């Protein structure tokens, strides 16, 4: 019995190592979303600016990015410079989904760090996030002209990803009918 108690720390360690090992082999960015190739889930959300409600028709007729972010999200800080730079490109439509956040914090974040979004939708209780299969913040969805989700990035954007995958994909989608 005494031996068993003394072995307890070892057992905790084994569990920890298994979890950490799994964490290493799973690249959290490589999980495919079952939503890819499906129309964007329906939603009706207020804008952060508070003046109106929008729904999924927002995406129709153009290729858009939907970036899920929150002011409490540390990793969002890392990708924000990239979003700001992207938003200055022609024919670029980036929407924000402000996830489980306080309005005042979200507005301050944008005021301080620059606002790359054409519009920011407010998902206060994370309900729409669940419909969209949001794992964690940040995530970025690519939605085509017909409102169909074509790609999803889990975790912060990096310049490598943007240059090698995102921008070519956007060009390709813009060429589609």
């Amino acid at each position, binding site marked *: 019995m005494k031996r068993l108690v003394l072995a307890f720390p070892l057992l905790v360690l084994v569990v920890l*190592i*298994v979890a950490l090992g799994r964490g290493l082999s*799973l690249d*959290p960015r490589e999980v495919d979303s079952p939503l890819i190739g499906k129309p964007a889930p329906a939603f009706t959300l207020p804008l952060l600016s508070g003046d109106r409600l929008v729904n999924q028709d927002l995406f129709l007729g153009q290729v858009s990015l939907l970036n899920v972010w929150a002011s409490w*999200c540390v990793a969002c800080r890392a990708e924000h410079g990239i979003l700001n*730079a992207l938003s200055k490109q022609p024919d670029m439509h980036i929407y924000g989904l402000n996830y489980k956040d306080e309005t005042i914090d979200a507005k301050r974040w944008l005021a301080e*760090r620059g606002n790359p979004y054409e519009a920011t939708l407010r998902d206060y209780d994370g309900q729409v996030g669940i419909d969209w299969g949001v794992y964690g913040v940040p995530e970025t969805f690519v939605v085509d002209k017909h409102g169909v989700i074509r790609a999803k990035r889990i975790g912060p954007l990096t310049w490598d990803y943007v240059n090698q995958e995102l921008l070519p994909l956007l060009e390709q989608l813009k060429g589609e009918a």
Partner: protein
Amino acid sequence: MIAAVGHFTLAAALAVSLIQMVVPLWGLRSRNVSSLSVALPAAYASFALIVCAFALLTVAFLNNDFSISYVAHQSNSALPLIYKISAVWGGHEGSLLLWMLMLTGWGVAVASRSRKLPLEISATVLSVIAAITVGFLLFVLLTSNPFERLFPALQEGRDLNPLLQDPGLAIHPPMLYMGYVGFTVPFAFAIAALLHGRLDTAWLRWTRPWATWAWSYLTLGIMLGSWWAYNELGWGGWWFWDPVENASFMPWLVGTALIHSLAATEKRRVLASWTILLAIAAFALSLLGTFLVRSGVLVSVHAFATDPARGVYILGFFSVVVGGSLALYTWRAAKMSLQAPIRLNSREGLLLVNNVLLVVAAFSVLLGTLYPLLVDALGLPKPSVGPPWFNATFVPLMLPMLALVGFSWRVNWWKADWGQAVRANRIAMLIALVGGLALPIVTPNVRGLGIFVAMILAVWCVVTALAEILGWLRKGRLPPASVLGMSVAHLGLGVCAIGIGMVSQADSELDLAMRPGDVAEFGGYQWEFEGTEHLEGPNYSAEHGVIVVRGDQGQELTVLEPEKRRYRSQPGNPMTESAINIGLFRDLYVSLGEPLGDQAWSVRLYVKPFIRWIWMGAILMALGGAIAATDRRYRMRKTQDEGVALAGAQA
């Protein structure tokens, strides 16, 4: 040239460390004294080699040697001198080199004091330290060589991450690493105790000062990190429950438990195997911290360098070292001789309660940090646990601790007399009650009622610590170093708790648009925005704002000059340089937001009451640790031992 010599030096250090690891162990088996004593010169030699490697890398930074990949990635010829030096440990490879510098440095410290230890103990301890050094040297040589050549060489370096260009960050990693790495020494002592089956008063007296020193450095390192975040991240926060902060906080919590359980074990012969386990755990958590920061399994603002291959190595190393130690623990701990029964109603009982609270707190931080990872590994959707989780679990654990701290030295070992403890503290209780209620009342903008409870307990902690020191002074002498150190550290805890409570419950902030000449009334001050001008720094350009702050009578208090900087290496990512007016009872903090056109800016104003107390408290805690670690009874061993040996010879 530098690169080749540096690389060679590291390889030589590996060879020496292998000798330091293997030969003494062989000497233990074969009872060969000369093999045992190899450990001492080897410890000096490996330290000297690492110092050489570190110096060479520093020279490469000073010479702008961009033919070395690490230098080209971390530095830039326009970088100011002090940041060229701190850039040596600004990235992954260099910070590991710093880590090894500290590790071998602690080894030398043990070696230089080893005359007080039996040779087999000091040889075992140095051998364990060498084993860790070998693990890290292999890691550096195989996956992250700081002397990796870059061909063709760059004309200009990429520059140090602008977030790291801050004086606080120049000294934060060395302090933090001194603490992290310092826990290797108590760990090595714990392994030696398990191997030799020896845990007695002498062992405890050797181990205590090392654990206390490591803890003091870690305290200071964490404090500097928090101070850096406050100055540099530009949004007035001082603690973010970020995975990397948690990685340093967990060994701190367990280390705090360790130094207290060491006290109980030394005085009352209780909790012996628990103390050993804590020594292993504090070190394991330091390694885990390295793994989390360097492997990229957790996304964090601090994780500047991440690479899965490195993660696999560190995880393997972690499993071998910690798994091996815990297996040894499982096998040997039951045989440890000191196992007296413990009564809860006594000082050692209170220390046990303190240990349980601290370890549970460490577990809650561990769980919150790893939760996304664990859930991910099980294939469930990944939820986010932010500050709400940590605040909800952490605060309720720390409040009873504050209450207990005040009683600690009024409660006797073996059996508590609570009536007497309460009587002796009547005045302190009264002061705590009055002070704890008054403090939030006189501070403007206090929210919530919980703050009253927190302040009463924090003031209680401060008053009892001061009372202890005063009690000795009234008797006409200075308290012994261990008592003085403990009191100063507990005073620091109380001061820190006052700061934390006040900042989180009484700070105020205002966001507004200001044009030149605008005056805002906020927090009892008048803030006048005088406008911005464009400035060119050595490796950045900046918008420089000027805000004059006046008191309610209109007298000028200070001029704050926040900046918005664009570093040439990262123009897409503007940095906020906030301006802070420091005060004992409040900080005035201004940061510039975005230009709104027509010379108007969005500006953020803060009043942060008592925030300095957080860091003053942490400094007091570290100071208390340093005082306690120099207590005479740790130094007197040798003469006593000689006395005993002499007595033995005569008998």
